């Protein structure tokens, strides 16, 4: 009899716990779905052709986000162009030449810290080394700030992907008398190609929504600007400015921009994931 009682009590406790787990999952996922839903509702309302064809408007009138979109594309592109080679080479060092060394372990540790360091700190850093000496905000400073964020992401994925390349392949190359540089560039890189591209796409996804590092490097610009030496607008900073404004038109544009960014980031992550998973499936 007493055994049954304990058993009943345990079953009860289990039921309560399971209900709690379920409700945690439902609760958490509901919030996240709610955010996406709101974004879709408000964002689609603000989307129109003029968003892509007109520049950001002065307060109280209609306009678009053309200059911000172009600015974002330029700075993201440059950020990736600056950051990827450094990240790729450093990741190569960690996975190939430096494997097992103390230096590699240190670099890996520091890189992991940089990977999750607050992005606003990166903004301050680039302000100190570029904006302050140059005396003005500029698009190029924004691109450098984004590059600083790209580097650790690419280092991490490059190392992970190169480690997945079987050692037998490298030995095959070495046995043929290939120097290491060719083993890496012709064998390891090719075998890990899909993974390396995935890493780059993830880096693009990461920086395309960044706001904090651009606030005081690229600043913002009301007008269309492709001159890297001048302040440059970006979607995320425009969203920040417009969302906090009291003007209804600006707020609508902010939602439209938010939808664009989210859509772009999600699309990039999905493509990256598909590429990555195909690699694993092989």
């Amino acid at each position: 009899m007493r055994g049954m009682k304990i058993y009943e009590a345990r079953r009860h406790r289990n039921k309560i716990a399971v209900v709690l787990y379920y409700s945690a999952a439902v609760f958490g996922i509901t919030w996240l779905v709610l955010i996406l839903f709101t974004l879709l509702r408000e964002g689609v309302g603000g989307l129109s052709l003029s968003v892509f064809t007109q520049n950001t408007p002065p307060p109280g009138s209609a306009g678009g986000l053309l200059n911000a979109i172009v600015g974002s594309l330029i700075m993201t592109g440059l950020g990736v162009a600056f950051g990827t080679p450094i990240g790729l080479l450093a990741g190569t060092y960690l996975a190939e030449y430096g494997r097992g060394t103390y230096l590699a372990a240190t670099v890996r540790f520091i890189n992991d810290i940089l990977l999750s360091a607050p992005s606003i700190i990166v903004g301050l850093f680039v302000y100190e080394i570029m904006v302050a000496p140059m005396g003005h905000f500029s698009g190029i400073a924004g691109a450098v700030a984004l590059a600083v964020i790209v580097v650790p992401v690419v280092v991490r994925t490059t190392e992970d992907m190169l480690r997945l390349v079987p050692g037998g392949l490298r030995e095959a190359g070495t046995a043929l008398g290939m120097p290491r540089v060719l083993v890496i560039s012709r064998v390891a890189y090719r075998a890990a190609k899909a993974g390396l591209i995935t890493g780059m796409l993830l880096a693009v996804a990461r920086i395309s929504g960044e706001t904090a590092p651009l606030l005081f490097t690229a600043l913002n610009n009301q007008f269309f600007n492709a001159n890297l030496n001048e302040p440059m607008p970006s979607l995320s900073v425009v969203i920040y400015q417009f969302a906090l404004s009291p003007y209804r038109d600006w707020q609508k544009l902010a939602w439209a921009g938010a939808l664009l960014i989210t859509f772009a980031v999600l699309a990039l992550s999905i493509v990256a994931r598909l590429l990555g998973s195909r690699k694993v499936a092989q």
Partner: protein
Amino acid sequence: MLSFKKLEHFRTQNRYPLLLKMLSPLEKSGAKAKDESGSANSIGAFTALKYHDRLWFGGEFLVQALEQMTLADIAMESGRVAYISAGQRARVLRSFKFRDASFHGLTLAAALAVLILLGGVIVSLFIGALPAIKAFGFGFLVTESWNPVTNRFGAMAPVYGTLITSAIAMLVAVPIGLGIAVFLTELCPPKLRRPLGIAIELLAGIPSIIYGIWGLFVFAPFLQQYVQPTLIGAFGSIPGLSMLFAGPPYGIGILTAGIVLAIMVLPYISSISRDVFEAVPPVLKEAAYGVGCTTSEVVRKVVIPYARAGVVGGVMLALGRALGETMAVTFVIGNAHRISGSLFAPGTTISATIANEFTEAVGDLYTSSLIELGLILFVITFIVLAAARYMLMRIERKAQV
């Protein structure tokens, strides 16, 4: 891909195929070669060839060819040199050596650049903060006032705001995040497991500004209208608790910022904990179920103790995010430089202060104080992240053993 026909062509023409061309099928066959030969061995080249069926046709030829030549010869073949002298061969080998050394140097430089990056961040922030450090000294940390007019700056209010919002975020997000992870690994129907897991990982990539704008336009009004009046009504008359819920319901404030942060870090916590829960050997769980444990007992007494270090690491990573998060907080915190006992009161965090005031800061001392705030934030997050990495490294080592 080298075809049999091509190999035959090379053979009849008495031309060695270019090794680099040969390597593209090698790449694809390599994984298989390693599996089937049991271990990677030093004559990997031949192993790889042997196990690649398409190459096997020409295998005999290739093996012969490879025995007679090295890459140096092939490199000259590609340069269309008809006769290979010893001198030419030495030159090619030298160039290989040089290219290898320079590539090694290049990658080493890039790896050092990562270290320099971190050093640069610390040094530049320190130099930028020097005027403020000189002016206020240690008192900066314990001064509440933030007054650009009188040039008196103190970090206490932003530091307090940063810590308290992150604490709220963790209080809310850790139980829910762990609940989601348990649901995904133990309770979820297998069909839903993958899509839900992917959805959560995708959500971790949504830019924080999206959470900010949602918090400002949707969540804050909702809190102001429904939740905050209820809380004030329920706890307003209880001594002790009334202090926490004092003041008018603004909507924006410390509590709102904390909850928005919680929603933002939720995907991190659940995806990392799910990964470490999945690393728990199934045998352990099966043994526990076998002796009659209930699901909740298995989770509490087997899964969580086994994965503890990893979970703590994941939580610390999320904490690092929460501490340094800028945009999601700046929208909803209210930006008031004061310390208030009430959760409904507007406050500020380090990152929100920097984001709001940096471009408008006039005067060296003002700017420098903001940079010193950044330095403090960096030191705090550095410690948290280093601890997180250490914990995660420990569980990785455990998983490998």
